[in-house]
């Protein structure tokens, strides 16, 4: 067992919460459970096989889902910031047509008779000491999403069902925690630690898991594979996720339990209450597909490492990342892929989830090279009271040819002679906008005739090739924005003889020009500039310009634009 968990938790038998509702076969903690399925009548995988009739039997993967219902999430999520929430009667209110309505209550308020949906005035009448807060749906959504991110420690597929339920696809994941039962126990203990009241249910279908989690008597339920029909039979029809009007309608004809719907003929049911009832029922029973929409698409390449004891030191974090990278790179090599982006996620003991992302300029799967990109940032990863689980996933990959065996020993360090890894290191530490390449533009005005483009981004704008050694004489260094300069010229329309700039005087001994540069008339209407190349008495060579010709409405100004070598 590699998972750290409190040692004093009772075993499966002693833990009162977990009830095996229908223990037919002993639960086996196998990585993948398989069961027999039939092509006909099963919408899931059977369709692809087409008409096979009764004979077309095949194995389908028994999917397992875990529903986490958090009935008091709206209030309990506030407990860390508002300690009163846990102890005193507390309620969240919303505005409805100008009236304030109780939206959620804590246990203490409920004990006094306050109910959700009550007008606030009624609630105040039964509980005068009731503390109030405005209900914040956006904040609640964010908090639930954060919890969903945390729940990715169990499985990469987590769906958020607002406002208070999470649905986890456990298929093929439970064995990582030693089976579903230990997983449920672990999850329950952690949610208790967060102070969240919870109701958990694991079942074959999302519908069954949701219904059982919401309406079963026991707070934690494990429905054995294939037993959902019995498990949901006694539960109220509301567990089918139907609109309230439909639930009321069914109640009027005496159908209050899901089990009562089993023998009812479908056609009249659909005629009276719509097709939704039958569909939901089939989804709960696993007869038709009920796809889960994960909060994010799990990347194909993902590795996970759980630690026996939470790790605290930088060395162990580094070692963990190395191991993850080693495993990931093996898988990438098998698939012929290389990563463009990698996200390392550290799950801390206190529930915090710390992501750390790197990017590469070209597809890469050399674990040493990728490790160097992480190395810079690992010391910024605050382990707090310890990191329990780290995952590494590659959200973006590119095709990459298989590694070629090198015949020549000199080829072994070929990677070092390429500048790609260097560029990656620079970009990852300094940021994309600080590692650039100059790019020529087809423009006349000098500051627009070139641009610095981030190395890892493709060109924008009209790029023209460079003409090395053949271009016009241009200064080696250019001011980002030309700086105004005072000049003395003997005749207005001549190059200056003196230049005053930042408190120094430059006597001009040689000048060349003017070179008239105007912006393109179809782009910008600005007066043309007259550029002069000048050299001062000490040999400094500068590029200056007059921003408009003499004789216009306004007096021209002089600017210094560049420095020749």
């Amino acid at each position, binding site marked *: 067992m590699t998972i750290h968990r409190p040692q004093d938790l009772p075993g499966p038998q002693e833990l009162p919460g977990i009830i095996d509702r229908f223990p037919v076969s002993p639960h086996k903690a196998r990585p993948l459970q398989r069961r027999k399925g039939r092509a006909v009548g099963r919408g899931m995988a059977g369709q692809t096989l087409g008409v096979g009739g009764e004979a077309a039997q095949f194995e389908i993967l028994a999917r397992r889902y875990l529903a986490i219902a958090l009935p008091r999430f709206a209030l309990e999520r506030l407990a860390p910031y508002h300690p009163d929430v846990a102890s005193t009667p507390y309620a969240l209110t919303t505005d409805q047509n100008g009236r304030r309505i109780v939206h959620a209550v804590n246990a203490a308020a409920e004990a006094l008779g306050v109910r959700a949906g009550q007008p606030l005035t009624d609630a105040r009448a039964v509980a005068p000491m009731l503390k109030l807060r405005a209900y914040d749906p956006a904040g609640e959504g964010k908090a639930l999403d954060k919890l969903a991110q945390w729940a990715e420690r169990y499985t990469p597929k987590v769906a958020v069902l607002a406002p208070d339920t999470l649905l986890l696809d456990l298929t093929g994941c439970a064995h990582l925690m030693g089976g579903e039962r230990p997983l449920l126990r672990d999850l329950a203990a952690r949610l208790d630690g967060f102070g969240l009241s919870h109701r958990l249910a694991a079942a074959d279908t999302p519908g069954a898991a949701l219904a059982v989690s919401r309406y079963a008597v026991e707070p934690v339920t494990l429905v054995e594979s294939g037993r959902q029909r019995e498990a949901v039979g006694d539960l109220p029809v509301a567990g089918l996720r139907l609109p309230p009007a439909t639930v009321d309608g069914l109640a009027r004809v005496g159908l209050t339990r899901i089990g009562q719907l089993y023998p009812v003929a479908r056609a009249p049911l659909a005629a009276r209450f719509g097709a939704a009832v039958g569909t939901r029922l089939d989804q709960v029973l696993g007869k038709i597909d009920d796809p889960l929409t994960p909060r994010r698409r799990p990347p194909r390449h993902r590795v996970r490492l759980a630690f026996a004891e939470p790790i605290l030191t930088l060395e162990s974090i580094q070692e963990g990342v190395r191991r993850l990278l080693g495993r990931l790179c093996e898988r990438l090599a098998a698939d012929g892929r290389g990563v463009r982006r990698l996200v390392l996620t550290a799950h801390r003991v206190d529930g915090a989830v710390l992501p750390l992302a790197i990017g590469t300029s070209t597809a890469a799967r050399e674990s040493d090279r990728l490790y160097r990109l992480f190395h810079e940032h690992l010391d910024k990863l605050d382990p707090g009271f310890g990191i329990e689980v780290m995952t590494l996933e590659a959200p973006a990959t590119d095709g990459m040819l298989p590694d070629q065996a090198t015949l020549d020993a000199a080829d072994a*360090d070929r990677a*070092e*002679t*390429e*500048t790609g890894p*260097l560029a990656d290191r*620079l970009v990852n*530490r*300094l940021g994309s906008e*600080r*590692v*650039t*390449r*100059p*790019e*020529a533009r087809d423009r006349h005005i000098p500051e627009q*005739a*070139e641009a*610095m483009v981030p*190395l890892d981004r493709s060109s924008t704008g009209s790029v023209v*090739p*460079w*003409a*090395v*050694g053949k*271009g*016009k*004489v*241009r*200064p*080696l*260094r*250019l*001011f*980002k924005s030309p700086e105004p300069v005072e000049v003395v010229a*003997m*005749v207005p329309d*001549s*190059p200056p*003889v003196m230049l005053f700039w*930042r408190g*120094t005087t430059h006597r*001009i*001994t*040689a*000048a*060349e*020009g*003017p070179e008239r540069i105007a912006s393109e008339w179809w782009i910008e209407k600005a007066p043309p500039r007259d550029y002069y*190349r000048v*050299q001062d*008495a*000490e*040999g*400094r060579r*500068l590029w200056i310009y007059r921003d408009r010709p003499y004789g216009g409405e306004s007096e021209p100004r002089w600017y210094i634009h*560049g*420095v*020749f*070598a």
Partner: protein
Amino acid sequence: MRDALCSEKEQNMNTLPETSGKAPVDLVALRRTVRRLERGGGTAPERVLATGHASLDGLLPAGGLLKGRIHEILGAERTLEGAAFGFTAALAALLQRDAAEAAGQILWVRQQSGSVRGADISGRGFEAFGIDPGRVIAVAARDAAELLWGAEEGLRCAGLAAVVAEVRTVDLTAGRRLQLAAEAGGVTGLMVATGYRAGKAVASAAETRWRVRPAPSADPFRRAVWALDLERSRGGLPASLTVGWSLAEQRFVAADPISIPHPGTRPKTRVPALQPNLFPKIAEEIAA
């Protein structure tokens, strides 16, 4: 590999007996050999960049600039002085031209924080200097530490022709670190330091240290002229000289005015050496 070993052996055999004969030259060679052996790079022959300027190469014991080393180029801090950057760019252009096609990248590291004041490198300027801007990686560091880190990373990457770092000063520790990185990666490092006052001797780990001042040129926009002081050269002697850099041919030339008419296009108006008393005449010339 075998060639390198042979030349090493040959060199050892040549230098040892001859030290008694021609002492000064061979002592230098011997010292270099010993230093090379000491650094564990015994088998790699030293790679030299010949600048193509006879007196410039003559100042350097290796007959040119040693590659895979750090060279410091000191300039004035004044923003309008481009001489040190010019000399650096000239060396970078030669290094890029000398490098193989695949390994001709230049990493140019400078510091930029917040508002950029002063002049920055320009692709068009590189183009005019003979550096291929398409093979320049320009890095803007936030502070001096980041700048030195970037330079060191670059020096360790053999795919680069040169690393140019615009620094204020380099202390001895950082200099040694960079020198080791340059030797490990075989990349030439050009450090443009603008924070040193002239006449102040500072300890340095660099192979050579140049102080560059601008000098008036007779044809200033086709030939840059720099006054160079070789303040430090490992195994060599300090010296001073003035060199020119032809912008048309992108090579070092003599600093003296040469009366060969330039093949390039002549400007519309040419104003040679302005003297106050010449102004009426100039004005006429412009008017004409």
